[in-house]
């Protein structure tokens, strides 16, 4: 027990939410950030399109519209009090980011530039509204860099490349974490008054994903193992436009700037599915439409992808037929240079990975696993809730993609993820520090590291009959096929059984690398264990929900069922089994209505 550390607040994860929490927590408490990557390599940096806030810089907008759009986007599963809070906080927090130095793209008058994004509308005209504040197509990169810079300025303590393997819970309170220092393989115990989980999502459960290798659901898995439930895990967003096969994300900003999706007949099929906003319908709607087009034989060259067309002539053609105008009333027209200026990175991706120049050719895209709406249940303060009565676990907080507040409900709107992580990262940081100031350290048991040792020993002494990579492949494949965009009872049941089988086989995973220094093989195996837990909870939660809502689309139950299913799923892992429970949705202003775009 040589590596003992004591901090008032320990933050697990160095992405947008973790860094925002660190900035606020460190002002009032002794704080450390533990991150398995260098913080600037966190997945926040891959976010492209923008952060939503009703600044109204370029045309009329207000937080009420933003709130309603988010509620509607969530398919009425989002908690409306939390959504309203987030949309109100959006405006000051975006200004705050600007004050921190974030280099937003600018409009001609020097204000923060805004673009259109899926599901964000003028509630009066029902037309898309300019709400997404952006920095070219690297908004996430800029947020991550800016927050990291501020952390350096404020001398936040970082433990880079420390993988947290266990949360210490003493008498129902969080008391710290155990982490392995990757460079040495040494275990470190971090004793803390408050622990904030900001570990990100788990898109690596699926085969085609926009998510980083690091996105392995660590936070959800660790808390599940400590008896904390996971909320709404059946809702996982498939972004409509990932690069075919690779899954690399092509931002919705492409469609915001006027790009359109075309099927094999060259038809702009979204006109049929969402006659008002067309290509800028929310992501679940677009992904499902693409799936239906493919099913009906209109995939490009008979394959399961669509073309995304942002060539200036196409953009101008449809802008003209839509009658799209700029805020000053002049017709919306673009040139190749405009596109290049606003979307430089996605053009680079296409050139690098596809050999396709989006200014001259169309991009092959398919829905790609993208974002976890579900996660560790929290309230608006970022406090983790352990049951259906919203009981708080003292000293434990979660923020960002790993948390389920829930502001995204059954489907997240584009630009609301970056918003979520700064708004609730800040809340979690503030509250964690506040809690730390008013409480004492809970003393740790003598064997704090025993469960972690047990986890590591399992791999070190494993029989090696099974390969991590094989199990991962099988999991990704079955989840993609049966717990993806469209789901059926039969498919999901099959997936659930398969995952259970994989979990059994996982016990026979062994390691070739018996060393301590950067044993990334061990890390991969441990992460697969997390993914399997998360996949299982996802499949079980999904089979149980007998309706279609947001990202959870069932062919056997194609309609939303507000009478029976207007509730959040809670899933516990108890004795190797998944138990389900439910809790009500907070409805304040908006009664559920049919959802059309």
């Amino acid at each position: 027990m040589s590596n003992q550390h004591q901090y008032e607040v320990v933050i697990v994860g160095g992405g947008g939410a973790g860094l925002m929490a660190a900035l606020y927590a460190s002002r009032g408490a002794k704080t450390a950030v533990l991150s398995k990557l260098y913080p600037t390599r966190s997945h926040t940096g891959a976010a492209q399109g923008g952060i939503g806030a009703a600044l109204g810089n370029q045309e009329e907008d207000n937080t009420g519209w933003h709130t309603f759009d988010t509620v509607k986007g969530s398919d009425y599963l989002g908690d409306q009090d939390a959504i309203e809070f987030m949309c109100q906080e959006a405006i000051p927090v975006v200004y705050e980011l600007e004050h921190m130095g974030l280099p937003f793209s600018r409009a001609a008058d020097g204000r923060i530039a805004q673009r259109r994004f899926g599901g964000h509308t003028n509630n009066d005209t029902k037309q898309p509204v300019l709400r997404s504040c952006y920095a070219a197509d690297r908004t996430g990169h800029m947020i991550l860099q800016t927050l990291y810079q501020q952390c350096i300025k404020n001398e936040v303590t970082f433990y880079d490349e420390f993988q947290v393997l266990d949360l210490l819970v003493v008498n129902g309170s969080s008391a710290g974490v155990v982490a392995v220092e990757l460079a040495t393989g040494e275990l470190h115990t971090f004793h803390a008054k408050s622990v904030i989980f900001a570990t990100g999502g788990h898109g690596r459960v699926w085969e085609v994903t926009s998510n980083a290798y690091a996105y392995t659901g660590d936070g959800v898995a660790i808390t599940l193992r400590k008896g904390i439930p996971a909320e709404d895990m059946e809702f996982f967003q498939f972004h409509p436009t990932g690069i075919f096969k690779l899954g690399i994300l092509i931002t919705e900003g492409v469609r915001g700037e006027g790009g359109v999706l075309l099927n094999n007949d060259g038809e702009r099929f979204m006109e049929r599915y969402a006659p008002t906003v067309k290509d800028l319908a929310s992501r679940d709607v677009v992904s499902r439409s693409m799936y239906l087009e493919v099913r009906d034989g209109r995939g490009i060259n008979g394959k399961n992808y669509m073309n995304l067309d942002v060539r200036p002539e196409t953009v101008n053609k449809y802008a003209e037929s839509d009658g799209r105008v700029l805020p000053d009333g002049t017709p919306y027209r673009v040139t190749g240079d405009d596109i290049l200026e606003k979307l430089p990175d996605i053009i680079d991706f296409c050139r690098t990975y596809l050999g396709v120049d989006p200014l001259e050719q169309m991009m092959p895209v398919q829905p790609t696993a993208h974002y976890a709406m579900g996660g560790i249940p929290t309230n608006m303060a970022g406090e983790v809730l352990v049951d259906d009565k919203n009981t708080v676990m003292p000293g434990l907080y979660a923020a960002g993609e790993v948390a389920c507040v829930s502001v995204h409900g059954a489907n997240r709107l584009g630009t609301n993820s970056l918003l979520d992580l700064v708004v609730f990262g800040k809340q979690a940081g503030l509250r964690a520090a506040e809690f730390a100031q008013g409480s004492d350290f809970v003393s740790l048991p003598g064997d704090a590291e025993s469960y972690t040792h047990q986890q590591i020993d399992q791999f070190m002494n494993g029989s090696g009959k099974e390969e991590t990579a094989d199990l991962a492949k099988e999991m990704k494949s079955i989840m993609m096929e049966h717990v993806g965009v469209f789901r059926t009872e039969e498919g999901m049941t099959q997936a659930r059984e398969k995952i259970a089988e994989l979990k059994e086989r996982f016990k026979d995973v062994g390691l070739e690398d018996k060393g301590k220094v950067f044993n990334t093989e061990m890390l991969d195996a441990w992460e697969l264990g997390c993914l399997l837990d998360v996949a299982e909870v996802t499949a079980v939660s999904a089979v149980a929900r007998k309706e279609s809502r947001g990202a959870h689309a069932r062919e056997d139950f194609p309609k939303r069922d507000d009478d029976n299913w207007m509730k959040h799923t809670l899933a516990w892992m108890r004795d190797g089994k998944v138990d389900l429970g439910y809790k009500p949705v907070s409805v304040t202003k908006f009664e559920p209505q049919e959802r059309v775009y």
Partner: protein
Amino acid sequence: MQVTLRIFRYNPEIGRTKPTFDSYNLEVEPTDRILDLMEEVKAYHDGTLSFRRSCAHGVCGSDAMRINGSNKLACKVLVQDVSSPITLEPLLGLRVIKDLIVDMEPFMESYRSILPYMVNDDIPEDGKERLQSPEERARFDDTTKCILCAACTTSCPSFWSNGEYVGPAAIVNAHRFIFDSRDKAASERLEILNQRKGVWACRTAFNCTEACPREIHVTQAIAEVKRAVFSGSLE
């Protein structure tokens, strides 16, 4: 198609202190990323192979290494872009910890030394954003793209010779603030870089610009900083 992957191996923990190369023959697609090949090796040939990676599409900067002799991101190079045998080696000038993993700390220390954060506490009275014209924003756009992968710094002959040289990446990040119309610490940053181990160690060898996976005009940024030191003007 068949390719041979030659990977630098080093692991003092098991007594592998003399750097050697291991070769693997793989059946691959021309459009596979080098990173995909490395994953294949790790999964099915040698689980002890260690390297860093995360986003796998060139925005996180984890997997910078020497590929066939020059610095690249393994996730941004396709098999069709290079010739077999494909040789992978760790970045030069930073201590190798294991296989392709190097100690990033000196690099991060240089980054931190140039005040890499906005210095300006004046907030408009209405609490809204500070205004900045699109032209002012464009002035430093290029250098906001840096992902701190270290490909530039470790391609620099001056850095190979003298690790005290702050390096291209740190200068790029200083440039990002020096030329931001909102920032107020340009003089301090220029003074930090106005040293033997600052911009004056740059010999315009240009490897940095060629190595940058984000296509930042690194040498240009350094030249602009040098000029600012001399002219006292940021125009």
